[in-house]
C-alpha cells in the first residue's frame, strides 16, 4: 500500500495553521485553495436555502460548519459534490469549476469523499465489499488490488477483524467507521462529513470522532458539518457559522467560541452549552 502511505506524508508536509482569516475569502483567487465556493445559491421551489455562500478551503485544512438545524449547512455540503444541484454560484475544486455544464460529475466525485449521517452502508455487502466496490467499479482496480486497499483502510479505522461482517452485524460506530473507510479508500482530495455522529448512540460517538481526528492528522482535507463543538474546537482550522443560508461569522475556533461577535452565534453557542 505504497500509495496510501505516501499520501499521508504528502498531507503532513503541506499542513499549516496560518490561514485562520481566509475561510470566507470570496472572489479573490487565493491560488492554492483546494475547494472554493463563490456566491453559492440553492433554492427548493421558491424557498431559498442558501443565499450566497463564499467559502475557501485549503489543502489539509479541516473546516467545521456549525449552525442550527435548518440553517442550510447540510445543503451547503451536499452542493459541493452536487448531490444537490446549486441554483447559482460556482464551486471550484483545484481551480476547476465543477458546477459548469458538461463536467463529468462522476469523475469529480472520485475526488470528493462523503460520509453520511445515515451512514448508508450497502447492507448486502460485507465491510470490505463496501469499501472495495467503488475501487473496482470506478477506479477500475483489479479485484485483488481493490481488496488489499480496502483492507488497508479498514485497518486504518481499526476494523480489520470485521472485514467479513455485514453492516447488520456491526454497531453504529463500527458502521460509520466503515463509512469513513469507504470514502477515504478512494483517496480523494477532500472528504465531506455530513453530521457523521448525529445518528449514533452517545457512547459510540467517540470512536468515530477519534477516527476523524486521526484522518485530520494524516493531512486529509475535511469539511465537517457537526454539532460536536468539542471536536470543532480541537480539530478545526476554521469554524464557519451558518444561519439562514448565509455565513454570519467565521474564524479560528478560539475566536469563534472564545469571542463570538454575532449575537445569533452567541445565542447558538449558549444553547449548545459548551
Amino acid at each position, binding site marked *: 500500500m505504497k500509495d496510501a502511505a505516501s499520501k499521508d506524508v504528502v498531507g503532513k508536509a503541506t499542513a499549516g495553521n496560518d490561514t485562520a482569516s481566509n475561510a470566507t475569502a470570496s472572489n479573490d483567487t487565493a491560488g492554492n485553495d483546494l475547494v472554493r465556493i463563490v456566491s453559492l445559491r440553492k433554492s427548493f421551489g421558491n424557498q431559498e436555502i442558501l443565499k450566497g455562500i463564499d467559502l475557501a478551503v485549503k489543502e489539509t485544512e479541516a473546516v467545521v460548519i456549525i449552525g442550527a438545524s435548518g440553517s442550510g449547512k447540510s445543503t451547503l455540503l451536499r452542493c459541493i*459534490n452536487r*448531490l444537490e444541484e446549486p441554483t447559482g454560484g460556482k464551486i471550484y475544486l483545484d481551480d476547476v469549476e465543477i458546477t459548469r455544464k458538461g463536467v463529468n460529475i*462522476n*469523475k469529480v*466525485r*472520485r475526488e*470528493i*469523499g*462523503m460520509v*453520511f449521517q*445515515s*451512514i*448508508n*452502508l*450497502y*447492507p*448486502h455487502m460485507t465491510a470490505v465489499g463496501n469499501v472495495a*466496490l*467503488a475501487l473496482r*467499479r*470506478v477506479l477500475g482496480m483489479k479485484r485483488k488490488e481493490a481488496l488489499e486497499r480496502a483492507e488497508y483502510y479498514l485497518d486504518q479505522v481499526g476494523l480489520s477483524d470485521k472485514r467479513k*461482517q*455485514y*453492516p*447488520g*452485524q456491526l454497531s453504529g460506530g463500527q458502521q460509520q467507521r466503515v*463509512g469513513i473507510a*469507504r*470514502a477515504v479508500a*478512494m483517496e480523494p482530495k477532500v472528504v465531506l462529513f455530513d453530521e457523521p455522529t448525529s445518528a449514533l448512540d452517545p457512547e459510540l460517538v467517540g470512536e468515530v470522532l477519534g477516527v476523524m481526528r486521526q484522518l485530520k492528522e494524516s493531512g486529509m482535507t475535511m469539511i465537517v458539518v457537526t454539532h460536536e463543538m468539542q471536536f470543532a474546537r480541537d480539530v478545526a482550522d476554521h469554524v464557519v457559522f451558518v444561519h439562514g443560508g448565509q455565513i454570519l461569522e467565521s474564524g479560528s475556533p478560539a475566536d469563534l467560541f472564545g469571542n463570538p461577535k454575532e449575537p445569533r452565534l452567541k445565542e447558538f453557542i449558549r444553547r449548545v452549552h459548551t
Partner: protein
Amino acid sequence: MEQILNYYFNLEVIARYLPDLLKGLLITVEMAVLIILLGVPLGLLLAVVRTYRIRPLNWLIVFLVDFFRAIPLLVIVVLTYFALPYAGIVMSSFTATVVALTLVLAAFAEEIFWAGITAIDKGQWEAARSTGLNRTQAIFVVILPQAIQIAIPPLTNRTIAITKGTSLGSVIAVQEILSVATSAQSLAANPSPLTMGAILYLILFFPFVRFTRWLERRYGSWRSV
C-alpha cells in the same frame, strides 16, 4: 366407496389416458418455463428502464403495465389468439398462450420490482453516486440486489398464479393437462382423467411452491439486518 373410487379414480381409465396426460404435462411444463424465463426478465427490464425517468417512456410503460394488469387472463389469451390475426399476427395456440401470459407476468413483475426499487432508501443511491458510480452502476450493483430481495416473496406468488394460468390454454385448444383431461373425460364418460390431471398439477406445482419458500428463506434477509 367402491363406486366413488370407480368414478373418480378408475385405474383402468387413468391407465388408458395416462400417456396423453403426460404429453399434456410436458406441454404445461414447457409453457410455464417459457413464461417465467421471458416474463420475469422482461418485467425487470421495464422496471430498470423506468428508473431513468424518461417521461414519455415511463408513461408508455405505466400504461401497458396497467392495461395488462386490468384485463382478465382469459380475455388476454383469447384476444391474442383470435384477435391478433386480424392485425396480421398469426400464432399457434401454444405461442399465443405463452405470449399472453408472458406479457401479463411481465406487467406484474415490473410493478413488483418497481415497488422494490422505490423501497430502497435514497441514501443508498447517494452513497453509491458519491463514490463516483454512475446511474447504471448504482442501479445494478447497489439498488437491484436489494430491490430483488424485497421483490422475491410477492414475485413468487404472482409467478405461481400466472403460470397456473397455462390451463387457460385449453380454451384455445393447447394440448396441455387440462385440455387433455377434459377431452379424455368426455370420451371415457368418466372424470378420472380430471382427477389425474389435478394430481399432475400438484406434482408439477407443489415442488415449485416449496422451492419459492426456500428461495424466500435463502434470500429473505442479509445477515441479521
